[in-house]
Structure formats: C-alpha cells, structure tokens
C-alpha cells in the first residue's frame, strides 16, 4: 500500500525519502501483473522519490549530451540566466514519466501515452516525488485502459509537472495486449 500523497507531503524531507518506493532490479524482475480488474478510481501509484544532486544533473547532461550550461555551470546559471542554482533537467523529468508508467504496467501492460507541462524550477536539494492517481478506467477491444493524473511534486507540495496519462492493462481473462501497441479505433 503506497503512502497517500497528501500524507507524504506532511512529512519531513528525510521521512519522505524513507518512503521512497522506487523498485530495484529484483523488484522489477519479480513484478506481478496488475490487471484491469484490480484497479479502482482514486487508487494511488507508488511514489518514486528523488534527491537530485549536482552530480546527478551532470550525469544526465553527459548521458544525453545536453550541453546547456544552466544544468552544470553554477556561475552561468546564477549570473547569466539569473536562476536560483543549476536546474534539474526537464528532459530528465519527462524521461521518468514513461519509466514510471512502464514499471506500473509491467510485465504485460503498456505505458501508452502521457502529456504534461513543466512548471517550477527544480534545484539540487529538492526532494522530488513522482506520483500518479487513477482517475477513470474503461474497456475497449478487450483491453483495459486506465486514465491517470500524474505529476512530480517537491517536498513543499509544489507541482512541477502536472499531467495525465493513459496506460493499457490486460484483462484477467483477456487476450495479450498487442505488441507493437495498436491503439483502439477512434483513440
């Protein structure tokens, strides 16, 4: 049972960090399928908690070859762009989204689509909470579709990435979800 988001936001940062539910490799290896029938409106997804440091930011810049100085050059960030510090990449946040949806739908569901906005500047020292909540679900062409509200909040409750997502989950007695994924007609 995932700690409710509102409850998490009332905790001290270190306590939030201790409630981190990011799975390790074995957790992902053993992940049990969530079926469409298991899901109810209002259900909360696991909370992925991050504590980005300058090293994390530099590692991401290097991995994707993003040379923008606002992410690693503190002097440039403070004095040229007048930012409060070096900034957490929007590209990292938007890469967490499909990872988060993949993990929740593993092993045989599908993290179909998401849309989100980038708000707020995130800096090293922030505690970041990737969260999701079921808003509705429907069945179509023998696939279970689940609509989610998603986001990434700071420890202060500031929403930095409000968004929505749609994932596909298998029905308990349904066929496999097609792969490559084929959206239902009219979607």
């Amino acid at each position, binding site marked *: 049972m995932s700690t409710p988001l509102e409850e998490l936001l009332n905790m001290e940062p270190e306590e939030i960090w201790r409630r981190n539910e*990011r*799975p*390790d*490799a074995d957790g*992902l*290896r053993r992940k049990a399928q969530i079926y469409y029938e298991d899901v109810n409106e209002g259900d909360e997804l696991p909370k992925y908690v*991050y504590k980005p440091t300058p090293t*994390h930011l530099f*590692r*991401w810049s*290097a*991995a*994707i*070859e*993003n*040379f*923008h*100085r*606002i992410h690693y050059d503190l002097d*440039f960030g403070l004095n*040229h*762009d007048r930012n409060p510090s070096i900034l957490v990449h*929007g*590209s*990292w946040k*938007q*890469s*967490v*989204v*499909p*990872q988060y949806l*993949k*993990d929740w739908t593993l*092993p*045989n569901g*599908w*993290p*179909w*689509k*998401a*849309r*989100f*906005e*980038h708000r707020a500047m995130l800096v090293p020292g922030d505690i970041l909470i990737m969260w999701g909540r079921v808003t509705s679900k429907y069945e179509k062409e023998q696939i279970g579709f689940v609509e989610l509200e998603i986001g990434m909040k700071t420890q202060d409750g500031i929403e930095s990435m409000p968004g929505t997502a749609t994932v596909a989950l298998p029905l308990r007695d349904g066929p*496999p979800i097609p*792969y*490559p*994924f084929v959206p239902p007609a009219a979607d």
Partner: protein
Amino acid sequence: MTQQQQQTHPPALTPAVQAMIGVSGEVVESWGVVDGEYMRRFTQALMDPDPRYWDDEFAKSTRYGELIAPPIMVSYLASRIRPDQGDPITAAFEENPESDGIGSVARPGELPPVPTNLVRVLNAGNELEVYAYPSIGDTIFFQNRYSDIRERLGRDGTPFLIITRETRYWNQDDVTLCITRASTIRR
C-alpha cells in the same frame, strides 16, 4: 475582447504562419545504432535499474524475448551530432564565449522557423506516445513536423502563438517506436 483591442493588435496567426502547419523536416537517419553502452549510460543516469535493459537471460523470458531500450531514449540518441558534419558545439563557443551551449547549435532535421516576430519562447507542454521498444542494433530514423499552430489571446488582449512540433521515431523495419510533441508559447 473589445473592438479597440482587436484593432490594436494584429493577428499572430497570419496566413504565412498558418501555412507552416504540416510542414515537415527532412527524414534523418541517426548516427550509429541503439547500443548497450549508450543504454547503460542513459538508464543509469535515469536511475532505472530494469533488468530488461541489461540482463540477456531474463530479457529472453519476457514477452519481448530480447533486451529492450527505453523508447524515449531514441529522442536523445537521434540528436547526436554526426562527426562527419563538423563540430557545432565548439563553433558556437568560438562565435560566442557566452553561448548557452544549446541555443545556437544546429541540430539535424530542424524545421524552418515560423515566420513571426514573436520571439519570447516558453515551454507549453509535452506529449509522448509509445508504440514499441527499440532493440539493440536498431537504426533510428526521425522526422519533425509542425503538427499544430494556434493563436490565443493574453489577458491584455495581445495575441500569442502555441506552436506544436511533432517528432516521429521509427526503426529500420518502419516500426513506429514513439511520437513526441513539444508545444511552445511564442509571445
């Protein structure tokens, strides 16, 4: 909106701007292929330890039957600067030592600019659709296009544009891997 405001501010969505909707860039074949080392760096920087990315034996037991790669990874792989086309990063800093390292760097497959004098750019949101996982060895192709341009009015009645750039990524078998859309506000 008063008649006076309408007369004060000329429309932002001019026929020339509207004509950009649907305009596509060239099809670009990314430099190199999806490779395990690039994926290691990407997934470690993302902090996604999923064994589907690195454990061959386990990957064979999944429905995909092989190692997979994060779909959004191809969007960064695709922006690799081809070594046979000069070094735009060094060139940008030679031209301007205060370069931000990204704004003036030419990328393959870029779209022609939208003919507007609205120069301030703000992020208005992102969309991601996922259809298949890339495989090790895949060659990645992509193409940008302006999928939508809309005019909106600010609180003061000043028109601004929301420009959406869509990018489709596919592999050598013409399997669509993912589609991204990035919307920007131009004020």
